[in-house]
């Protein structure tokens, strides 16, 4: 079993990488979403590269 390509360590490495990446993408996507909502609440709309300090 330990000589096969998908042995214990490889499966653990691949699955933990997928879990970590999934959790972190979920977290950062949530942060982006809440930031956009905050900007929309503050300035009415959200556009990329809009500088709220310039009127």
């Amino acid at each position, binding site marked *: 079993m330990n000589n096969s390509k998908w042995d214990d360590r490889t499966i*653990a490495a691949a699955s933990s990488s997928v879990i970590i990446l999934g959790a972190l993408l979920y977290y950062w996507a949530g942060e982006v979403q809440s930031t956009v909502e905050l900007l929309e609440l503050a300035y009415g709309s959200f556009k990329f590269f809009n500088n709220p300090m310039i009127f």
Partner: protein
Amino acid sequence: MLSNFLSNYRSVTSLAFIVLAAVLVEFFEVRASIYPSLLPFFEWLKYSSWIGYLGITYGSVYATVQAGHLIAMAIIGGTVLVTDLRLLGVLLKDIPSESITKGTHQCFKYGLSVAIATGIFCAAGVADKVYYMPVFWIKMLALLAGSGFMFFIKQPLLNSRPHSEIGPWTLRLLAVASIFIWFTVAATGRWIGFS
């Protein structure tokens, strides 16, 4: 048969157990019930411990230790980037990745030790503030996950055999997850500083 499976797949079983434990902790709201009981410890850390006293009283000491913390973080970031970009085939392609991963891991261990020691001091000075910050707890979780991933998953696999015998997509997945988790540790750390 079960004992045979457990002995052959010890890492996978441990990982499944940790994931299950995390799900149960959230499901039964264990974290929420423990959280209020941690406040006295954080208040003691800031107002009664000698590191909290030093941090509050002497700004120069706090700044010096924080500089050490940033340098340790830079060492961690450097070793992680060199290792993982080599595994992705971006950097230092003329040097065997086995040499790089073994060499940088020693440096990583020293950097992590200094970062944790100085980080406890830095947190002690603002313990009553960080206790209420969700991003502080995200950082602690990311640090715990990143350290566990590095010491129990990534390094044992990379040291177990020549990297040519490991699937290229497994190596890439490892490298991207590693970069992403240490990026999160660094980003949430700076977020604490700017909150």
